[in-house]
């Protein structure tokens, strides 16, 4: 069962590990990687909550549309739970 998720399309200032080119894009969860301290808190020397990290797979079609070199090539990235929403 593939689970579809979308990377949230917000744009807060500060240290963030969800790349710009993936925001608002839909992919499927490739695997759940476990829980890791939230880098958005670690970056400021704060106690960090543990957040679930996922590897999400996107098609190049979804990311770049007609520009994609090959529609079915894929891009995997690690995205924290709080940056994902269900489709």
């Amino acid at each position, binding site marked *: 069962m593939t689970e579809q998720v979308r990377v949230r399309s917000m744009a807060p200032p500060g240290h963030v*590990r*969800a*790349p710009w*080119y993936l925001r608002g894009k839909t992919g499927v969860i490739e695997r759940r*990687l476990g829980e*890791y301290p939230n*880098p958005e808190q670690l970056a400021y020397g704060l106690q960090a909550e543990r957040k679930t*990290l996922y*590897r999400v797979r996107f098609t190049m079609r979804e*990311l*770049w549309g007609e*520009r994609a*070199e*090959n529609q*079915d*090539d*894929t*891009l*995997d*990235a*690690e*995205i*924290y739970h709080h940056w994902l929403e269900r489709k």
Partner: protein
Amino acid sequence: MSHDHPEQIHHMGLSSSGHPFRNDNDFPLTCWQSMEIAVRELLIEKGVLTSDEISRQIDAMDARSPANGARVVARAWVDESFKTRLLANGTDACGEMEFDIGPLNLIAVENTGDVHNLIVCTLCSCYPRNLLGFPPDWYKTRAYRSRAVVEPRKLLREFGVELPKNATVRVHDSTADMRYIVIPARPVGSELMTEQELARLVTRDSMIGTGLPLEP
């Protein structure tokens, strides 16, 4: 450390690895170098670090090189059950081979006839350095970081990698806590080679995905 290389190589302005030396002891002091000296001395004076710890850390990092990754790949080529474990948990599998990769969370991805994997870090330059040592300079450049996710095939051609038309490219952007190593496809014609011989075919770039293993 950069002064003990064979004479003729040194005279060409290249180190024994064939790369130019970077400004070192004999060049005018830069403000960054004086900051490094100052920070290091303050840390030692305050008892945070010892100079011995620093030397040992440099030695540990110098001991890491693509040869470590090559041994892991060669093991995966000859030992199907090791490969299965490596693909399931890269960190544990490297631990079996007694590589000290520290807190590195390693994910291994496998190239086959149909799939070619490529590793990048678009946000900074994350690299499996605890296994492979220092990343190549180009890995940290704007050009590589920008282009790998949008035109991997064109980029691969620049690196001299021609893929079969029907191959799927999978790009991996190391955006968070994982680091990646590519297990390149075992070269045709290597069937009779030993694990040690196979390791010599595995290049650094073949484990990043920007190259292929050497031909036997």
